[in-house]
């Protein structure tokens, strides 16, 4: 039996009838057409499918769409505002925090919760915060730099670039 769900994604409210077994990531990608959220492993390991659900980073391949009924979601498409990149997106741009870009949407959403919890994280805290997100390209250092850049910008400081 299908279930009616109603939820808000990046500020827009949607209502759909879904099968209980529909995974949230498939709902976001296939039903809403928001393909910025990626599927890497499908086994809760890689974090590519990370979104925010009610303000918390979650792996949307391991949540049912019906569990998100009534929730507020944020996906990578909701980060930029009025054509302005989010400081985290700007950090990834400036610091070359991506190569192929596959891990990037999930990485940025994990970074967002990390920075909401710890506005001035140490490198160690950044690495712990993105522990659930795998990147096969960058070796992580530029991702760490990108998050540091974003942290400075979000604290209202001059977002000085990392020395390379």
């Amino acid at each position, binding site marked *: 039996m299908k279930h009616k769900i109603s939820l808000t994604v990046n500020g827009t409210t949607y209502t759909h009838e879904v099968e209980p*077994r529909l995974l949230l990531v498939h709902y976001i990608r296939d039903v809403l057409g928001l393909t910025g959220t990626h599927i890497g492993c499908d086994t*809760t390991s890689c974090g590519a499918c990370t979104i925010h659900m009610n303000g918390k980073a979650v792996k949307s391949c391991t949540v049912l769409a019906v569990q998100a009924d009534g929730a507020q979601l944020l996906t990578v498409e909701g980060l930029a505002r009025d054509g302005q990149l989010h400081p985290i997106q700007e950090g990834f741009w400036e610091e070359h925090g991506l190569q192929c870009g596959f891990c990037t949407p999930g990485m940025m959403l994990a970074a967002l919760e990390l920075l909401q919890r710890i506005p001035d994280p140490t490198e160690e805290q950044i690495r712990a915060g993105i522990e659930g997100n795998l990147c096969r390209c960058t070796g992580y250092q530029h991702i760490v730099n990108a998050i540091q850049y974003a942290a400075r910008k979000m604290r209202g400081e001059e977002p000085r670039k990392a020395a390379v």
Partner: protein
Amino acid sequence: MIPAAFEYVAPTSVQEAIALLQQHGDEAKVLAGGHSLLPIMKFRLAQPKLVVDIGRIPGLDGIARSGDTITIGALATHDAVERSGLLREHCPLLPETASVIGDMQVRNRGTIGGSLAHADPAADYPGAVLALDAEIVARGPGGTRTIPARDFFVEMLTTALQPAELITEVRVPVIGKGTGTAYVKHAHPASGYAVVGVAVVLEAGGGTCRRCAIGINGVAGKAYRATAVERALAGRALDEKTVAAAAAHAADGVDVQGDLYASSDFRAHLASVYTKRAVLLAASRAG
């Protein structure tokens, strides 16, 4: 990977959930955070006909103190346990344990009730609840009962819960002055689960061990109390040599698991090494 089709219901009370479980028997499965159940449903290792989502039952996620006991609702996430000020102050073993479960996203979804009910031998909470002599409160068709942690883990992935019973809360003691606690884990490099995890609650006085309780997960098919080590430490000095000699008994009498990552000999060795570290760390915190 897509789970097999199932019907879904999200009851809003514990009674309603129990009635559904009773009515549907083996065909129904409880869903809490879904971070053990959904992965196995995606692999189709579990194909329940009915999923009973308890995640929307109000009042099951609180953490509160009454007297010398702290009660943690079954739906408290690992993240909520890790960050609870009350637990950090009065029962820091649980936040320390929760902080090393999986990753941030896993901790945001997984719940203490789900972890205990799943009873994965490599999970992190079982050792801690054993060492704390915690009580697991279960509600079923016959009413509410309290299961001591020692009686809760029956074997791999099997607990003392009856089919239509739900864990509603976990009760742990307030840790007083003079008692130190620690959880030390050797995480599997790929999965992050415990290859060996040792939880210690140790009451010290004048440099000696008055009483200690040690729970170990990851090593055997179910978490266990390292009673041989507890006995060897009671009344003894807490110096490194004495602790190491006692910790050598960490895997006495248990059937040590072996796998591709860690043979049973290596795992037994790790159990001793991590037991020594956890005891010394708990002793250093018993101020």
